[in-house]
């Protein structure tokens, strides 16, 4: 085991992936609880498909994928919320349409320009090889901004999510906080997508929160536990994926699933 870890950390691409992964996992786990409690879990999933579509377009154009994807996915998040609030179309229907369409566009563009190849596979299911040094700086900077915003709005987010009608009655703009959550989710999804893959990135957001909620019953404790869980599961996933030559994203999801099952089991046995 020690040799394995030593070998793992001797590759610079692994180190880059681990740095980005830890920051992204932390931010994703902050956002997870508000999203789960607001019943927004599926928005993450929908946006990740949009992210895939934008990546597919960025690559043949030869531009840095993050710089194209972040604004476009944020735009999609903005539109999704607008549709949810204003039109008669149900929010989940809008998500389904947008996510399928962007996935389709992405796959077509990719197959036209580069053929169905390992690139597509990597973007779908994640790879730790993909991250460049420049992207590490960008990811860390973005994560720090998200963390700062989260800390600043932490109490207010709790206030709004816990009782939307009370918040509205006392003059708080619910729309602002919905938008904030959706935009931050969009950013996290794009920067996490390289490691986790478009299909699996939303698991990084919702799993730690859901797992923590099995056992813990106060807001603060759930947030703290999600942070710890997300980093632990991420590291476990990376090590397993390296040792067994599994794809990275799925290995991290499996680690999260194991944690979820263990927490559920403990919660079941302690309640009975």
């Amino acid at each position: 085991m020690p040799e394995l870890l030593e070998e793992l950390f001797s590759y610079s691409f692994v180190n880059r992936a681990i740095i980005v992964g830890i920051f992204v996992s932390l931010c994703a786990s902050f956002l997870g609880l508000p999203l789960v409690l607001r019943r927004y879990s599926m928005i993450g999933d929908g946006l990740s498909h949009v992210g895939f579509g934008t990546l597919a377009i960025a690559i043949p154009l030869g531009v840095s994928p993050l710089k194209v994807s972040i604004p476009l996915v944020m735009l999609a998040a903005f539109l999704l919320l607008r549709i949810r609030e204003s039109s008669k179309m149900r929010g989940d229907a809008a998500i389904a349409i947008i996510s399928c369409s962007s996935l389709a566009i992405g796959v077509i563009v990719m197959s036209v320009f580069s053929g169905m190849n390992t690139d597509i596979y990597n973007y779908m299911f994640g790879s730790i090889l993909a991250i460049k040094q420049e992207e590490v700086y960008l990811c860390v900077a973005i994560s720090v901004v998200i963390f700062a915003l989260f800390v600043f709005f932490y109490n207010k987010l709790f206030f709004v999510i816990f009782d939307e009608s009370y918040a509205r009655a006392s003059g708080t703009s619910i729309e602002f906080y919905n938008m904030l959550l959706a935009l931050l989710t969009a950013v996290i999804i794009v920067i996490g997508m390289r490691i986790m893959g478009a299909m699996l990135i939303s698991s990084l957001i919702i799993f730690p929160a859901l797992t923590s909620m099995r056992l813990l019953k106060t807001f603060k404790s759930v947030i703290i536990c999600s942070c710890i869980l997300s980093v632990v599961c991420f590291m476990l996933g990376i090590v397993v994926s390296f040792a067994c030559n599994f794809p990275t994203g799925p290995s991290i999801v499996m680690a999260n699933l194991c944690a979820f099952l263990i927490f559920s089991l403990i919660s079941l046995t302690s309640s009975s």
Partner: protein
Amino acid sequence: MQKILSCSQICVKYESTFALSNCSFELDAGNFLGVFGPNGSGKSTLLKSIAGIIKPSQGSVNFYGIKKNEIGYMAQQTAVHRDFPASVYEIVISGTLCRHKYFYFYNKNDKKLADKNLELLGIEQLKHKSFQELSAGQKQRALLARMLCAEAKMLLLDEPTNGLDIETANQLYSILKYINSQGITVIIVSHDISGVAKFCDRTLHLGEYNAGIA
């Protein structure tokens, strides 16, 4: 007495049917108003219009000498809170945020106020308990304490005694009466006419088509 609220000719339409039509009344600061009426008469709709949660299709709601952040609203008990991880303290102190404009961290005053209101409502021993594990009556008290932390001057309560036994309901009414005696205006929507009526100084009966104030 000083006027605090006037509703004139409020109509609320859902799709093509009127949930509430032509409801007009005025209220003075410090009043305790009970709103009664059969199911579907628009009691909750009226309360939501006053709270600003829904916008009336006609008519207007005007407040006098009270700011938006001084209004406390308590919705009917819903399933939304069933799996919400939150301690009583986290909920109660969050009420103080109504008074914070740009800065959302709790200061010493907020913490004091939260402790004071927990004590006032007799739930200080539940401070660190999870909200989902409370009984219905304890939940209502926690939500009331939150409104007091907001230093609300008007409380809008939608069926607060639903699901409570008579004794717990009466305790809640006495608490509300005490809060009211501190000068806070209370509007309560209820089915429980016999329980509420003796605490109210004014009542509003909503019928199918018209509304009048007694």
